């Protein structure tokens, strides 16, 4: 089993990279262990491993508003197959990690989107899909019913532009979100909180 491990991006924040002489013995150990049948070694931080798991199984909420929802459905369907990114749609906000705001949000639906977001368990993410969800899009001017951007109601992590964005664009958005999740200092933040408290 050849894993050729390097520590995840989460563990390197801020500090200078270690000198080659410092990491060489570990690399040698990995090389030796890799050659033993059934051997193999993965070295990582708990944080990087947790983030890798979280990023690889983002479960979005099945919630479509308008046209972008059709492209979202297309992204889940045969050709684009979003499931291979680990994104399996969930029908309830309680099980979802991600809400994709797909389409124009009216002033009438805005409190409901907010409620859905509140019902989701932490950590939670928001993708704003399409121009309407991002800024009101073509419904910006002369309009009395459309919210000018969903970020007035809930915090957005990734904006996907387009009217509507192609399924490839949505997949790119989800990959960007995965990168973002992999960098998150979830444990270091908790440690810092403990230190502050002590």
């Amino acid at each position, binding site marked *: 089993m050849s894993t050729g491990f390097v520590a995840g991006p989460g563990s390197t924040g801020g500090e200078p990279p270690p000198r080659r002489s410092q990491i060489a013995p570990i690399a040698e150990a990995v090389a030796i262990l890799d050659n033993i049948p059934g051997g193999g070694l993965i070295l990582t931080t708990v944080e990087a491993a947790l983030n890798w798991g979280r990023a690889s199984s983002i479960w979005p909420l099945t919630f479509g508003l308008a046209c972008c929802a059709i492209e979202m459905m297309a992204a889940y369907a045969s050709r684009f197959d979003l499931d291979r990114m680990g994104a399996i749609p969930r029908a309830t906000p309680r099980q979802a990690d991600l809400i994709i705001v797909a389409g124009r949000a009216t002033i009438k639906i805005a409190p409901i989107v907010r409620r*859905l977001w509140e019902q989701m368990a932490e950590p939670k993410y928001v993708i704003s899909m399409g121009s309407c969800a991002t800024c009101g899009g073509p419904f910006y001017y002369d309009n009395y019913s459309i919210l000018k951007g969903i970020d007035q109601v809930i915090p957005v992590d990734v904006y996907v532009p387009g009217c509507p964005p192609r399924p490839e664009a949505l997949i790119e958005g989800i990959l960007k979100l995965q990168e973002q999740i992999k960098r998150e200092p979830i444990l270091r933040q908790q440690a810092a909180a403990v230190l502050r408290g002590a």
Partner: protein
Amino acid sequence: MALRTEELMLNMGPQHPSTHGVLRLIVTLDGENIVDVQPDIGYLHSSVEKMMEHRTYVQNVALVDRGMDYLIALNNEEVYCLAVERLAGIQPPERARYIRVIFSELNRIASHLVWLGTWAIDLGATTVFLWCFREREMILDLFEKVTGGRLHHVYFRIGGVYADLPEGWVEECGAFLDYFLPRVDEYDKLLTENPIFLARTRGVGKISRADVIAMGASGPVGRASGVAYDVRKAAPYEVYDRMEFEVPVLEEGDCFARYLVRLAEMRQAVRIIRQALRDLPGGEIRTRVPMTMKAPRGEAYVHTESPRGDLGIHIVSDGAETPYRVKIRAPSFSNLYALTEMMKGWKVADVIAILGSIDIVLSDVDR
């Protein structure tokens, strides 16, 4: 002594995986039986009618794609362009009219495929969804080659269409139709004889012919209840009067009949496209219309057969560059009206089956 029971109010939506958008249904239940259903709409109101008053006739083509029924952008563009053309007395060239027929029928197939896939997934048949979207992607590819867009095209323009068909497109489209027709038989085989599907749909959600007419329901919902009305036959527009096709009509008025009517419509659409491809004339694709065209004072109403039913648009002009008033007659709105009648007396488990069967798009209802 009789036990006292109370009716239960159940709120369904606006976030529900099976409401096909943001529809809220307030269902009154007596045990498991549905006593009453009240739809609460307006969650997707885009105020498109008001916005169109502030944009020029040419700009509005982009708006009807998004503001009206988003699944059938080309059919929306068709009805809008026809209305403006009637108002301003513009005659699009012959070739453009044939191209419009081809594209609106392709869009009809794409729309029915989305409906079939999502409805089947509501009823627990996941495979159909994947199959339908597989074929739909091919139609979108055909669109993309000509219009550059997958969903919103802004392809039909006042006085014709934006661009001519690229080389080899007609053959490609013909090849797709040859591929597609056996696929419809596959859906047929997968669902029509499926005992679970039959148990969920046959006889469920019946509505009588008189009720359909009284509620103004149209399209496949009306034709499944024996109303033999299709705008393409009753008031032909574009070149439909030269096409040979049948209007599938069934008498049962249940979910299963609505399914069969749409399946037959897909086959008829293929037939129409084949004729249009065969007879496609050469020549111009667009009459020259100034970007700031002014329509003469007056009004025009045009209605067409959209995949959901009788889609009409009424434009009033005061002689300026922008319409004075636009009113959209949305088929989904009237079909939603008939929903209460269909659902009364059925079990709560049938709500999803009946709601899906009327093929409602909330963007069309709310506008």
